[in-house]
């Protein structure tokens, strides 16, 4: 298929940036290619012409690392549900389509180059409490700690978060609540995480707020955009947990 793509090109963090249109480079694209393979082809052709290839992030190319962030025609990770950009295939498009490709837009995720943004803000949130520092014992101790199936399932659902940032990109307010709440739900649900629950909740919400993300007003665009389909229910749990921690913790 032949496509027209408009890609956000920005030399570095200081550059104002703008859209660049490509048509010749997007001719004869196979519908079996992934979206990133399509960009690889475009980049090869740009390189042959002596032009700067489009900078984008990718690593695993199988939907688990969360680096392949880009907004495709107004949707983070493109039009398919529960898919990352690397899992999106060109059969989602048809011959003659026009595709706009933009980086995540958020003050907390500054653009490094073209489609690559700096997601350090997420690391800061994790550093604030996204870990367990109590001694959980060795392997046999894990077997002696009984955890109900429903509890472990809900913790696992939250743990599916790959930290890609699509929630922030999709949120009209640039809020990072789905990410932070997923991490909190993942750890606070399990007995190993319980002893530090209150401190973890206060610290991670605090880190999220100071990183410059917006505030949640319950649009739930995050839930719709999440490639791992994490439910907005984790945000409600964080809303409860934060009040409990604020009022209850000494």
């Amino acid at each position, binding site marked *: 298929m032949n496509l027209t793509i408009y890609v956000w090109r920005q030399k570095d963090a200081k550059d104002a940036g703008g859209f660049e249109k490509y048509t010749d480079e997007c001719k004869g694209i196979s519908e079996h290619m992934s979206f990133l393979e399509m960009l690889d082809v475009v980049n090869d052709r740009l390189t042959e012409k002596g032009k700067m290839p489009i900078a984008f992030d990718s690593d695993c190319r199988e939907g688990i690392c969360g680096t392949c962030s880009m907004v495709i025609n107004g949707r983070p990770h493109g039009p398919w549900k529960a898919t990352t950009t690397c899992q999106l295939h060109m059969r989602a498009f048809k011959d003659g389509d026009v595709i706009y490709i*933009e980086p995540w837009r958020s003050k907390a995720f500054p653009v490094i180059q073209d489609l690559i943004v700096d997601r350090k803000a997420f690391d800061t949130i994790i550093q604030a409490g996204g870990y367990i520092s109590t001694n959980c014992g060795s392997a046999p101790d894990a077997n002696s700690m009984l955890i109900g199936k429903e509890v472990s399932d809900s913790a696992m659902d939250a743990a599916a978060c790959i930290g890609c940032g699509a929630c922030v990109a999709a949120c009209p307010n*640039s809020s990072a609540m789905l990410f932070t709440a997923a991490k909190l739900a993942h750890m606070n649900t399990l007995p190993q995480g319980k002893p530090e629950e209150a401190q973890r909740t206060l610290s991670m919400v*605090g880190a999220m707020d100071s990183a410059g993300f917006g505030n949640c007003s319950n*649009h739930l665009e995050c839930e719709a955009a999440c490639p791992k389909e994490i439910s907005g229910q984790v945000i409600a749990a964080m809303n409860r947990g934060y009040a409990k921690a604020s009022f209850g913790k000494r």
Partner: protein
Amino acid sequence: MNWFGRYLKSSVGAKHVMAVTGLLLVGFVLQHMVGNLQVFAGQEAINAYAAGLKKLGPLLWVARIGLIVIFLVHIASALRLVSLNRAARPVAYKMVKSERSSFASRAMAMSGLILLAFLAFHLLHFTLGGGPLKTQFNLIDAYGRHDVYNMVVLGFQKPAVAISYVVAMLLLCLHLSHGVTSLFQSLGLNHPKYNGIFNLAGPVIATLVLVGNCSMPIAVLAGLVKATV
């Protein structure tokens, strides 16, 4: 008290502030509507109700000041959040495709601000007695009470006034349809067993308020409720 300030200022605490003040304001809107609907029971009923409210004296002032404080907190907090949210996305997207959010949820700030302007007009109109209603505001009924009944009826007989109320109520309906449903999530109430009720609560309460409040100007315009002076 350090922790309490931090809690209120945090993104999650701010949600709770919006939800709790919003809940109280919805309570006020509903009781205000029920009180006003007595206009259908005739002049005696609503004038007696209004006189009864006035008789509360200092208690009425406590309620009024409480209401004003709740309003101010709701508005100030909303404005702070909107400006923070704007700042959080300095460069806008070229293309945005909304999937889950509703028109109502995206228009909260707009509907809220227009409602604030309407509120100023409404207070001037029926509480302070200025604006297009000046002459009807000082009416006294046969028992020497403030004649609320004729004030309202004569006020709504002006089509422009009646229509402005209907338009404001459409905006209020929009605001409540997201606001009421949203406050459950903000307060941490999200459970598959009850989400059906939470999701219905917003649209149902918003529609009740729309129908109830619009019934008055429409009945007056249609000549179903007539002035007695």
